[in-house]
């Protein structure tokens, strides 16, 4: 996988910060994505480029079950979200829409916004600032959903 810039966020980052309630009923994810992380990084949508990474601490994506949260990150081309741990609904939603979510205990504390990193899903490793970090592999069941491109793609496969 390719090198991308890091955008780093705090522990217990809730999904309201990823996309605020006032934008959830907009017609499409594409209209919502301009407002990603608006409360914390008002220029996030302008600054992020496809292949970049979002890095969080503990309990990333807690709070509301809004699938728009992983949805806007995927629509903006975020390559993966890497965190020390994830809140369960965000984690499941991300896999369901085909956005890789990677648990990596050490990397988040060693990086800051603007650093670059590289991720190998197959090796389960991440590289940042010249150092290699091991990541927790997804359970096989979830890995399969992700590799099929998400739950709907997997459902369409079954429909054959």
């Amino acid at each position, binding site marked *: 996988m390719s090198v991308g810039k890091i955008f780093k966020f705090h522990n217990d980052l809730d999904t309201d910060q990823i996309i605020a309630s006032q934008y959830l009923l907009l017609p499409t994810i594409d209209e919502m994505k301009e407002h990603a992380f608006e409360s914390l990084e008002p220029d996030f949508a302008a600054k992020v480029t496809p292949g970049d990474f979002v890095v969080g601490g503990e309990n990333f994506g807690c709070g509301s*079950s809004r699938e728009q949260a992983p949805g806007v990150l995927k629509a903006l081309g975020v390559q993966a979200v890497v965190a020390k741990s994830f809140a369960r*609904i965000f984690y499941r939603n991300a896999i*369901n829409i085909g956005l890789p979510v990677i648990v990596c205990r050490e990397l988040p504390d060693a990086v800051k916004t603007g650093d670059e990193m590289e991720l190998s899903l197959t090796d389960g490793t991440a590289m940042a600032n010249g150092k290699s970090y091991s990541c927790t592999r997804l359970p096989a069941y979830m890995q399969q959903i992700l590799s099929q491109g998400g739950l709907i793609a997997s459902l369409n496969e079954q429909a054959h």
Partner: protein
Amino acid sequence: MGMTIAEKIIALAAGVPEAKAGDIHTVNLDRMMSNDGTTHLTVDMYHNRLKDPRIAEPKKMVFIVDHNVPSDSPKTAAAQKKMRDFAKEHGIDFWEGKGVCHQIMMEHYVCPGELIFGADSHTCTYGALGAFGTGVGCTDLLYGMVTGASWVLVPETIKFNLTGKLREGVYPRDLMLTIIGNISASGASYQVMEFCGDGAKTLTVDDRMVLCNLAVEAGAKTAIFEADEIALNWLKERGRKPKAVFKSDEDAVYVKEYTFDLSKIEPVAARPDFVDDVVPAKKVCGVRIDQAFLGSCNNGRIGDLRVGASIVKGRKISDHVRFLVVPASRQVYLQALKEGLIDIFMESGAIVMNPNCSVCWGSCQGVIGENEVLISTGTRNFKGRAGHPSSKVYLGSAATVAASAVKGEICTADMLQD
């Protein structure tokens, strides 16, 4: 090896004799609920992404417009029309303006032993009746709608032994905020919070809903009470029957156990911007507020309105405060009318609104502006949750919120002087 209530519900839904934490099972879903926060996207995916669009059992589905009702813009109206038309076309039960989704589900649908997915994080509320309710996103909801089934990773269970009884002036909301403050916002991540013990017997179904509803704020997959006589009587009064009534086995495996003595709980408040930043309410007394909110799926039931009304009765809301009172459902609203509570609120200067999610989710009537402060019985106090990113939300009980509305600054009910 014994099973917990949650494991038994999953085993039944999966059609297997035993389920244990860590297993992944395919389960038949008993019900699915979706609200206007995401349903327009679900409907779009149904039409545009599925090779073989179909609905396994429309009778398992419930669509509820509660987040932005009545609509606040042509775009919202369009999103809700999409949902309304789809429900009508497919014979899906549809509710609009009649209450917050979890209150509607509890009043009309949820039965003990059921496994329910809801496209809303507070679906864990249903554990108050011994059901396994859990929040999902709209893709999971769509998959369930199409197939009638889904997959679950069986969660570990944490046991919460409740002892004693809450003192007068202390409420289940104080108890649950105290628990969350104690175990943290990720203290029950991926796990089930099972509430039991003599203290649980002192709690009504409405009280239990307060506890279960906020379980997601500790990261839990769900929370659950055994469907005891209190729950079964409540269900019978509403003409429903359980799917299954489960108790946890004596030798069930718990990953952790906590004990909370209800008699020791004090009024508390959660400070901005984290639900687990919980302190004694007295510690935040004196914080000037601009708005107070009594409502939500956590704390907008008749008991909460009674508490709020008893405090504002014969008093006036502070000049600089908007006090929003939002019954959680039409049933609650009608009951409050009958009991004269709405008169009391109106005479005090409160703004009584139609049942909806209101300012609790920050995109309905009542959102707050730059640097404004809200004290709320809502579910969350995240940064900007109730409006402008610079605004602040404190969470407290109905009593603390009503007292603060009168005083114009955060205070507990016992501090109000006539």
